[in-house]
């Protein structure tokens, strides 16, 4: 069975540009979460979606947005990129949003902002 897949694997953008990252969850999983991992730190929660609705949002500016599609795949959008947005962006999927549900992670998209 396919795990969580993310695309692209690497991305280079310049300041002020916009970026879209994509995530396909494990088949049967209805929840997708996004995390940002800055070099040398643990991942930080950005969003959680369940059944196409935003269920939770972390402490990130409005430049960050996301959506979940009817097939449960998801996109993360970041506008007006800053140098500080350079990070590994991780997508995780789970069957639902209960606290005992395991979140399975993709390999991530590494974004470099120049």
């Amino acid at each position, binding site marked *: 069975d396919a795990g969580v897949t993310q695309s692209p694997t690497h991305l280079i953008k310049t300041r002020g540009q916009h970026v879209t990252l994509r995530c396909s969850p494990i088949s049967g999983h209805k929840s997708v979460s996004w995390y940002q991992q800055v070099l040398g730190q643990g991942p930080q929660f950005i969003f959680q979606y369940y059944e196409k609705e935003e269920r939770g949002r972390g402490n990130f500016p409005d430049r960050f947005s996301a959506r979940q599609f009817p097939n449960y795949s998801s996109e993360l959008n970041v506008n007006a990129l800053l140098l500080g947005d350079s990070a590994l962006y991780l997508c995780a999927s789970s069957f639902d949003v209960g606290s005992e549900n395991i979140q399975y*992670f993709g390999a991530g998209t590494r974004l470099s902002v120049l």
Partner: protein
Amino acid sequence: AQSVTQLDSHVSVSEGTPVLLRCNYSSSYSPSLFWYVQHPNKGLQLLLKYTSAATLVKGINGFEAEFKKSETSFHLTKPSAHMSDAAEYFCVVTRGFSGGYNKLIFGAGTRLAVHP
């Protein structure tokens, strides 16, 4: 609020010796706790989870962790390190299902180096 502190940023061991990665947590209620491992250029892989059942939790690849409520600790151990264990390890506590969602709260990570 929930938080987790990994007490060592780097741990270095020799192959075949025991591994101990330390984690303390803070939670206002019974937490769910996890250990994830991240190999270079790879995603996060779940090693084990604690969800209020047995306090000694066994995971994959010979790892185990013990939940100690009195010490608010969840340390990760392995009796004998292998070269392939070299990676970044994250202790994680869940926010819990409050407000209709659940997020993972990660520690800063411990980088494990294994020497021949």
